[in-house]
């Protein structure tokens, strides 16, 4: 199935978002794994490791499962204010 991951902060170097092909019922850990290759190209593997994933309502647990067409966001360490 295909999910979209919107990119924020340091991940913006990879664009606005990424389309990922992941197994059906993939969970967040699998989304994270699918992000490793693009993250590696931008030297963002350490940042990926400490990032969380969210939808528009909440930050998601690693075990949360995704659905086809989901739009997620990757949240690297925050620095607002």
């Amino acid at each position: 199935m295909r999910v979209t991951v919107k990119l924020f902060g340091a991940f913006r170097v990879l664009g606005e978002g990424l389309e990922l092909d992941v197994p059906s019922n993939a969970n967040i850990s699998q989304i994270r794994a699918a992000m490793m290759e693009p993250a590696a190209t931008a030297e963002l593997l350490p940042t990926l490791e400490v990032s969380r994933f969210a939808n528009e309502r909440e930050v998601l647990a690693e075990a949360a499962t995704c659905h086809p067409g989901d739009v997620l966001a990757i949240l690297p360490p925050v620095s607002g204010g």
Partner: protein
Amino acid sequence: MSVHVEVRNIEQTVLDTSEALAFVDAPGNGAGALFVGVVRDWNQGRKVKGVSYDVFAPLAEQSFAEICAEAREKWGEPCRIFVAHGKGRLEVGGLSIVIAAGSPHRGEAFAVCRYVIEEIKSRSPVWKQEHYVDGDSEWVKGHALCGHD
């Protein structure tokens, strides 16, 4: 409503401290505290020209609302709170965030204002890219959100 939270495109409309203070005013409130974040011309020894704020707006606004609800639970229901965070690029002197708290007494107004900015800094999905005078740019190292579970 006693709470206003907002992510604003600051390239279109700048943040406004008077609007924030007017929102938190109420006949029973004797104290108002306000905090503004301003783009500074230096950080960690480098000369800064401007800062771009990247925000995941729906979740950011939700986190602001949660933080404000926590503050009102801690320091009292009469408390009114205004939070507006900028999104987009600012030059030195530009306002990135405005927080105001109105309360019957000053202790709560200060405490709420401080609580809200500290929580936003550690919990809200906002990222800051500094643009240096030398032409370089860098994303500010931030606070990791609570670990994987």
